[in-house]
């Protein structure tokens, strides 16, 4: 039954990756709305692009959180109580994002729309930054004492490496959202979105490379990867997917592929990070005894097995029906659409 903990460890990383790849474009589009959605119809079109999907995307977060709780209760307890304030801020961003999605179109008043556009952009920025900062801190290790009690404060969490991680997430999601938007809207807005994608990709890649170099050589992933070199295929796949996304964007102009490659890259990035801390869920940089390992954190084999059966049945089903729903609901949005209203 030893393998069950490992299986769940990988599923855990995979769920976070899927969440980033899906909600990431919502955050990115929210962030871009005040920048490129200059007319009222354009910003409305940007909201319509994410309107049917943000909620379904957010459930991946609920699932990732729920799986952390179910499969690794100790990790859930230590992680979320240690990162109390950042997590509360993330929740605040998600609350206001959801409110913005539902409230924004209720009044066609300029100031009202502007307020929610700014809120959405602020929430997108905050959520992306916090997710990047939080996961960078996990990769680097939290200051946990031997009893797994957090001995840091919010300022320790804002280490330059973590802030670089936050910036990476912001740029990655902006690029992700821009590509998605360019594919699903038409006319000037699509051109502007594609331009935003083309401008953000180099910054994103630069940040990505710097982050990976630091993660491998300063945080110490290199040694752990050397121990089982097969894992190197993850960061390589990640880089290849991001490059393929850029290739599709600049050279073939196939935006859907650019988006899908980038999503794949994001998932590989999450797995790269998670495999780099194996067998820890939360390494400790204060006292190695405080590290939350799979063995220390995992639920009983019985629960892991039941959960695995549930996951094997439902997760592919979820992916299938979300895919179907996206195919049925997504359509090219014309930004002159609203003029009829």
């Amino acid at each position, binding site marked *: 039954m030893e393998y069950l903990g490992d299986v769940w460890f990988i599923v855990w990383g995979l769920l976070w990756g899927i969440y980033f790849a899906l909600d990431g474009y919502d955050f990115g589009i929210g962030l871009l709305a005040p920048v490129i959605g200059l007319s009222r119809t354009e910003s409305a079109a940007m909201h319509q692009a994410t309107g049917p999907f943000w909620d379904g995307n957010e459930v991946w977060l609920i699932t990732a959180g*729920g799986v952390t*709780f179910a499969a690794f209760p100790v990790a*859930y307890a230590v992680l979320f109580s240690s990162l109390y304030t950042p997590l509360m801020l993330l929740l605040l961003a998600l*609350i206001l994002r959801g409110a913005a999605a539902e409230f924004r179109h*209720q009044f066609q008043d300029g100031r009202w729309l502007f307020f929610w556009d700014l809120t959405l952009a602020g929430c997108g920025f905050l959520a992306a930054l916090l997710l990047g900062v939080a996961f960078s801190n996990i990769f680097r290790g939290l200051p946990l004492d031997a009893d797994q009690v957090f001995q840091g404060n919010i300022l320790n969490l804002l280490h330059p490496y973590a802030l670089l991680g936050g910036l990476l997430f912001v740029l990655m999601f902006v690029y992700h959202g821009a590509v998605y938007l360019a594919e699903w809207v038409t006319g000037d807005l699509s051109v502007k979105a594609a331009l935003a994608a083309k401008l953000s990709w180099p910054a994103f890649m630069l940040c990505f490379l710097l982050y990976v170099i630091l993660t491998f050589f300063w945080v110490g992933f290199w040694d752990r990867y050397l121990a089982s070199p097969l894992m190197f295929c993850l960061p390589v796949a990640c880089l290849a997917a991001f490059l393929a996304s850029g290739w599709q964007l600049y050279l073939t102009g196939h935006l859907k592929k650019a988006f899908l490659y980038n999503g794949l890259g994001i998932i590989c990035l999450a797995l790269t990070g998670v495999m780099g801390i194996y067998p820890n869920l939360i390494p400790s940089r204060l006292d190695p005894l405080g590290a939350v390992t799979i063995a220390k954190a995992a639920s009983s084999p019985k629960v892991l097995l039941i*959960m695995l059966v*549930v996951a094997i049945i439902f997760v592919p089903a979820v992916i299938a029906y979300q895919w179907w729903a996206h195919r049925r*609901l997504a359509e090219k949005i014309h930004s002159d659409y609203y003029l009829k*209203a």
Partner: protein
Amino acid sequence: MDPIILSRLQFALATFFHFLYVPLTLGLAFFIAVMETRYVRTGQEIYRAQAKYWGRIFLINFALGVVTGITLEFQFGTNWASYSRYVGDIFGSLLAIEATAAFFLESTFIAVWAFGWNKVSKKVHLTAIWLVSGSGLMSALWIILANGFMQNPVGFKFDPAGRRVVLESFTAVLGNPYGWGMYFHTVFGAMLLCGFLVMGISAWHIFRRRNVEFFHKSFKLGLCFALTFSILAGLAGHQLGQITAEYQPAKLAAMESQWETRTNAPMHLLVIPPYDDREENLVEELPLPGLLSFLATGDSSSEVRGLKSFAPGDRPPVWPVFLSFRLMVALGTLFVAVSVLAALFRRRIPELRYSLLLFVLMIPLPYLALELGWAVTEIGRQPWVVYGLMRTAAAGSPIDWYQVAGSLVVMGGVYTVLTVLGFFLMGRAALKNPGDYDAGGYDAAQGGA
């Protein structure tokens, strides 16, 4: 300041705000599904308009349910880390299954319903709302079974290492009688809340003599909900009372402010519990002989434990539990009475005048009753976080009080603003004419979203 107290306040705040939206989501999804089924069966446009009109309110309400719900799943980790470590094996898995098996379905198909009026076939669209309704009810089941474990822990064993409890029997956890008792009472309550909301809004339109035919149809289905489910909620509540008597006698004693253990226990109509350390009621009048024993166990000669039989440290706070319970029961009785009255006058509703306003005034009361019910359940569970197994005082996180104070203030402020805004927008949507939702433009493109 004690972080535990603040964490409790924060949890109460988040759940009570969340539960302003959950019942209507459950009830209205079912209501709309019935209306849309009529549309698909008969092809009459009025039923399509019904689905769209009520759908508008439903979607605002749903969004608020989502944004207030998201904090709940994470609060167990942020504020109740010791609890999460101790029972995560069982409790966490129920939450995870809820997200995977139910909430995904609800969130995805609500979008298909809201945005798919012109994009999927009639039958697929109808299936979408039934899936939303069914998955909402499934969601509620998983969550309440998780809560049921806190009320009546079953199917667990102590881990050899001793720092947690682990799952022994999944079927026992799923078959927890306390969980099922709460589930039916809650779901029936949700349906009756929807019934009264629909009746209230419809009555207002009928009172204003607008779209009378349309709203008479809504009213009748709302009445059907209110009548059926106020009776069922009462019966399920009685059932839950018996389950409580069996598994949480201290809660039952607090609900009734019953201090002495006695057989053939009467129910007193007039009771004033003590406000200090005294262990007897200040006033205890108008006894109905044997009724409490009968209600608690089905046998009027049976023994009912009083609060004195529990150590003072094991008793829940009496006043809030007692008052919430009495008020909830009074409201529940009122719901049955008003539903029966409305049923007698159901054909004459369009001719009524000022008596219609009664139904408008009724709208907030089921909300109050449902929140009171949860107050009974959760305050009555104290001082335990998991009844008999773990005390609330031992369940917290190693966090600083000012962190919790900060999040409490911010969350309280944000939820208050969003709730005011949300109910204002729902009210605004309710005051519109059904025809407004079939006009062209943005609303139509979003299917009334």
